[in-house]
């Protein structure tokens, strides 16, 4: 065929550009901070991580996962065979036929991509992404045709100059998009960066069904605390940003985005890409941060992010609910990045908005966020006759009370739980005035120094006593104690109270009546569900009471945040709606008269919604009301 001489040249050129681009791109990532990864093991694990873990997420959208397997698989196969057949010129009918099959597969996949792009949902980015299906089709078709003669289907000298020129243009265009674009910032970049991101992910524990949600500690002796410039991120975080496919799944689930607050996780990740590569966001073709114009942001690897690239309000709008991380097919860690940048704002700039500074000052001076007398932690339990660890030294269950001790509404939850513990004859004790705030809020507000100080002092107290397990009614404390204290030498078995009560009920320690009220739904707290994977115990427990849950559309791992996490009520960034109101709408849509929760923060947020609205009760309260009290 006429192209025979030209084809290898073109392919070689495209591959050379691919390699040059790759080196360039890798150097952009290497501007980040060192973080050790295991190169070989990571690369070896990559295919499995792609096929299993990534597809586990992508597979929530069956259409897209099948499409991606066909297109991506077809492309990788085609490329390998193209190199063998057209570059090295291996004259093998089998290989040629295989290449035909691969391009055909890719073609079919690309057709579905094309179809999806006919009427793309708002969450998808437009711009160059709109041309991608066409590029895929051109690549598949042209290589299909030029392979036909090799496979012996068509004569070697098939076609004239016209066809040759058309094919040549097609090949150049296809190779340009697929190989040149892959490492020079085109849409196909996601394949290159994504594969490496999977290999060198900062939280490898997430693969193979694991979970890794605790924030990483800050080295308080470092020159700059937190992330000021893109180059302050770890290199593999930068790599992760680059892997984003702009699918907007994160945007679609983000409660702050839905509330019209100036945050869009997809845009944030794209702004990080702008930062690491340098330039402006003018080419961004997705939804903006609500209420903010696109095109104004500028940044570079060594420019301070919050001075021109991302407005601090964007960072402070996040509730750290992790819905975006859970949904992201590329397993990008938005929350890590947001908290990293908050750390700089709080610990270097002293710029935590609204009540942030006051809350942090209180935590430093009184170990609780509202500045209450730390000697008054046990006042709520004046009539409860609780054992205190300082007296008993040893117990089976250590009840971690949390700052709910100072809040009248939360005290009702605490009392209900104590009632259950007593009814089941559990050997338990509390720390009393020796307990401190877990550090959750301080950490999410970016003050890791205060978090670490609280954590270390709590651990020192805990390590003085003997107990088997910690149980708490506060999912935030639960998460800190269970996942974040490990870095400071605190390794405990920690249970959420719903898990524990469920155990008691299953063991027949509690006698319960059937629930007699109307329809009930359950709101999964982010820090219990997505952070710790506990979706079942609360549901089982409610089932024990004879409650048939009317589930909300967004429940379980897709639960929508109540708006209370991450210090968001403290930094209080204005939006168009309140997140708690939206969540209450979700509740109302089920027709429930009661929403069961497992978190005092969720209780406070949901009860803050104006009446009339369904009632809000903690599961401990619901169970305590159904308790059959035996008269001795």
């Amino acid at each position: 065929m006429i192209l025979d001489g030209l084809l290898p040249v073109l392919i070689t050129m495209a591959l050379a550009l691919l390699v040059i681009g790759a080196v360039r791109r890798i150097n952009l990532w290497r501007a980040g901070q060192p973080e050790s990864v295991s190169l070989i093991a990571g690369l070896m694990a990559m295919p499995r991580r792609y096929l299993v873990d990534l597809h586990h997420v992508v597979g929530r959208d069956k259409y897209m996962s099948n499409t991606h397997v066909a297109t991506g698989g077809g492309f990788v196969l085609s490329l390998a065979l193209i190199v063998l057949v057209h570059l090295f010129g291996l004259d093998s009918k089998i290989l040629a036929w295989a290449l035909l099959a691969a391009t055909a597969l890719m073609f079919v996949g690309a057709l579905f991509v094309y179809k999806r792009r006919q009427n793309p949902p708002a969450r998808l980015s437009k711009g160059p992404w709109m041309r991608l299906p066409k590029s895929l089709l051109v690549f598949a078709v042209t290589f299909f045709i030029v392979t036909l003669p090799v496979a012996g289907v068509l004569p070697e000298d098939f076609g004239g100059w016209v066809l040759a020129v058309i094919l040549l243009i097609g090949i150049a265009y296809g190779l340009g998009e697929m190989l040149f674009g892959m490492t020079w910032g085109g849409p196909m970049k996601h394949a290159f960066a994504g594969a490496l991101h999977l290999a060198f992910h900062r939280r490898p524990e997430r693969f193979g069904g694991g979970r890794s949600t605790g924030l990483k500690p800050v080295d308080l002796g470092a020159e700059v605390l937190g992330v000021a410039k893109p180059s302050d991120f770890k290199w593999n975080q930068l790599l992760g940003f680059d892997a984003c496919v702009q699918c907007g799944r994160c945007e679609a689930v983000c409660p702050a985005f839905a509330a019209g607050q100036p945050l869009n996780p997809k845009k944030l990740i794209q702004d990080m890409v702008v930062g690491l590569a340098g330039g402006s966001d003018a080419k961004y073709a997705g939804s903006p941060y609500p209420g903010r114009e696109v095109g104004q942001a500028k940044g570079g690897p060594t420019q301070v992010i919050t001075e021109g690239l991302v407005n601090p309000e964007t960072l402070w709008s996040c509730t750290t609910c992790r819905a975006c991380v859970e949904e992201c097919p590329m397993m990008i860690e938005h929350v890590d990045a947001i908290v990293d940048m908050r750390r700089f704002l709080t610990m270097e700039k002293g710029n935590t908005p609204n009540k942030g500074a006051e809350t942090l000052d209180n935590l430093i001076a009184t170990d609780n966020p509202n500045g209450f007398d730390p000697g008054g932690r046990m006042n709520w339990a004046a009539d409860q006759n609780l054992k205190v660890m300082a007296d008993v030294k040893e117990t089976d269950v250590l009840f971690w009370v949390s700052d709910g001790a100072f809040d009248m509404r939360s005290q009702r939850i605490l009392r209900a739980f104590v009632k259950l513990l007593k009814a089941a004859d559990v050997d338990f004790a509390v720390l009393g005035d020796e307990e401190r705030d877990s550090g959750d809020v301080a950490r999410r507000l970016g003050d890791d120094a205060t978090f670490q100080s609280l954590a270390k002092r709590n651990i020192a107290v805990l390590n003085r006593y003997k107990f088997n397990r910690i149980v708490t009614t506060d999912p935030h404390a639960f998460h800190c104690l269970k996942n974040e204290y490990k870095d400071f030498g605190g390794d405990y078995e920690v249970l959420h109270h719903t898990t524990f009560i469920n155990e008691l009920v299953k063991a027949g320690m509690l006698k319960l009546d059937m629930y007699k009220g109307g329809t009930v739904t359950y709101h999964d707290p982010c820090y219990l569900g997505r952070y710790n994977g506990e979706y079942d115990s609360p549901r089982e427990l409610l089932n024990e009471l004879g409650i048939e849950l009317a589930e909300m559309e967004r429940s379980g791992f897709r639960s929508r945040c109540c708006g209370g996490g991450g210090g968001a009520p403290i930094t209080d960034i204005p939006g168009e709606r309140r997140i708690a109101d939206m969540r209450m709408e979700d509740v109302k849509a089920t027709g429930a008269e009661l929403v069961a929760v497992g978190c005092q923060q969720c209780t406070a947020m949901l009860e803050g919604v104006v009446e009339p609205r369904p009632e809000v009760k903690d599961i401990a309260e619901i169970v305590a009301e159904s308790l059959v009290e035996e008269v001795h």
Partner: protein
Amino acid sequence: MPHDLNLAVLVSIGQHPKSGRARRAEQDARAVELGLKLVGERLELLHAGEAQQEVLRSYLGMGLKEMTLLEQPSAGDAVPALGRYLAQKRPDIVLTGVRAESGEASGMTPYLLGEALGWPVVTRIADIIKVENGEAEVLQALPRGQRRALKVRLPFVASVDLAAETPRQSAYGPGRRARIDNASVDAQQDQLRSQWQEAPARKRPKRLKVAKAKTAADRFKAATAKSQASGGQVLQNESAQEQAQALFKLLVEEGVLR
């Protein structure tokens, strides 16, 4: 603001009213805030007291690279050391809090310093509007949100009231990295204090307030309106002897002196 304006802020170790823990004192932090507004980083931060008090870093975290520590024993008297240091440095303005949150908390430091330096003392200021031609325009805080504008010649000592601008957040990182320089001064034992005995404070009896307001509007007025000087007496032309006599009589009447 003149570029060569020199400003020293004296800070003490505060104490949280609920936890009793050391903290950035509220008035002193406001003095630092005011100082930062006037001269920025050039402000000289001073503390006379024991060394190694980490909480001093919460003042530095407001955006200062260094501070000077005049090291004193725990029972030391801060005033002579501060007086000597300031007399030698001769700043234009010295800012302090009104009263310390811990220790003696007598509120005497600004007065004693004013006396030692021979400078005027302006109490409870809310703001310094400007400094021009060796003169500062100062706003003094009066009860009920009222302000009194004063013109004061430099140099002077001023105590900063809670009514001043709330202090900025203290940032951990810069506070940690800032330097605390030791200036060598002779420590001086507080002779008087060493003879004192400390006892928990007793609640002071409050003067009975007769509520005259009948309506909400009245109460609002009572809370906000300028206090009417009633029954007061202005002694301007009398001799010092007569003035003192009148004061003495009042103090006896009020039961302050017996």
